[in-house]
């Protein structure tokens, strides 16, 4: 069992000369769930992208570490799972091909049984060879969870995880957040109260404006 930790040091982000948020500092060093809430346009997606190392903050820094050693930004993508409505998978491939290519590009072994059980869990197993083009938006959203979990990441970032999902799908996601939070650091950004119900801590972006 390795020890992962996620630290944020006085993060600040501005778009052009407009400040989005500033002074965000926290330290997560054991598995658990952190919630991010705030009204529309308060920078939830921006913050979660910065925490996932996809965007860079204007000031401050995010440190992901593994057993006290910092994970360099070149390698960070293999430790991260990310789900959001604006994430798009390749339409011209089937779900199976998508996942297979992701494993290849990540240079990790493609764990068929794990992917199959995930597909089963998200009710996509019998549609795995259909092109993603033909999927409904809810099915695409469920496929994104498989994409985020297939490599057993240490950090899981969920931006509005339940958008487009039906009640059954939502329940699967809540169960998943609960089970993943025992071994991984999960960050959830959402406005729905149910999404944030499992959080150990909630960070309200309203308090980080100047």
């Amino acid at each position, binding site marked *: 069992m390795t020890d992962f930790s996620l630290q944020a040091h006085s993060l600040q982000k501005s778009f052009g000369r407009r400040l989005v948020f500033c002074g965000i500092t926290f330290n997560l060093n054991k598995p658990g769930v952190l919630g991010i809430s705030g009204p529309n346009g308060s920078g939830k997606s921006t913050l979660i*992208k910065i925490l*996932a190392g*996809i*965007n*860079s903050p204007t000031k401050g820094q995010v440190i992901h570490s593994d057993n006290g050693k910092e994970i360099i*930004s*070149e*390698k960070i*993508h293999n430790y*991260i799972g*990310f789900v959001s409505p*604006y*994430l*798009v*998978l*390749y*339409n*011209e*491939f089937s779900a199976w*091909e998508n996942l297979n*290519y*992701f494993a*290849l*590009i*990540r*240079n990790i072994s493609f764990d068929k049984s794990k992917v199959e059980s995930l597909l089963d869990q998200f009710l996509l197993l019998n549609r795995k060879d259909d092109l993603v083009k033909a999927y409904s938006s809810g099915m695409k959203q469920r496929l994104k969870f498989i*994409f985020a979990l297939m490599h057993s990441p240490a950090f899981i970032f969920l931006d509005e995880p339940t958008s487009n999902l039906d009640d059954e799908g939502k329940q699967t996601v809540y169960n998943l957040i609960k089970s993943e939070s025992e071994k991984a650091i999960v960050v959830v950004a959402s406005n729905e109260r149910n999404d944030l119900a499992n959080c150990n801590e909630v960070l309200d972006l309203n308090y980080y404006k100047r």
Partner: protein
Amino acid sequence: MKSYALFQKDFHSELRTRYAINSLAMFIIVAISVILFSIGNENISPGLTGGLFWVVIFFSAMSGLSRAFVSEEERGTSLTLQLIASPATVFTGKLLFNMILVFLMNIIITLLYSMLFAEFIIQNYLLFFLTFIFGNIGIAISSTLIAAIIAKAGSKGTLYPVLSFPILLPLILTSVQLTSFSIDGIPISEAVFELAIVVCYDIIMISASYMLFDFIWKD
């Protein structure tokens, strides 16, 4: 080989969608026939055919090479790529794809061109071969980097040749010069300076690309 896997993905995707290949093939035919029509029955000098040869290559490259990044950005899959690969991997994969595309395209252009233009006679094959190799590598590198810029700039197509031309100009001028040397049958020993310039261009551009790509790729 992560970048090779990325290349495989792009290749597979290209086979399914045929975005770049079809337009590129048509563009080559259109460009060459425009030149043929405009020449008509005029006699043109071998030196001029060398110049026109690079005109065709430049414009064909401009028609197809931006797809590598623009297609990802248009569909919104760049975020997915960011989540599965480091910037260096992404650039290498895309460069590999464009490299193959440039070589494929230019071999076809060369074959068609030497069939259709009687005046295009190469006397120093080795020199032409070297020019072809290093020139193509240079075109692939610069155009991949500019493709990344215009993809992030969110503008379609029109900006691509505008931005690429000044960057490719030294390479194209030197390659035109080298091609006319090889048409005149000048020995390689006299063209070492120009060859060295093309090689330097390739090296400088590839190092700059790897240094600057991170800035382009991360928002």
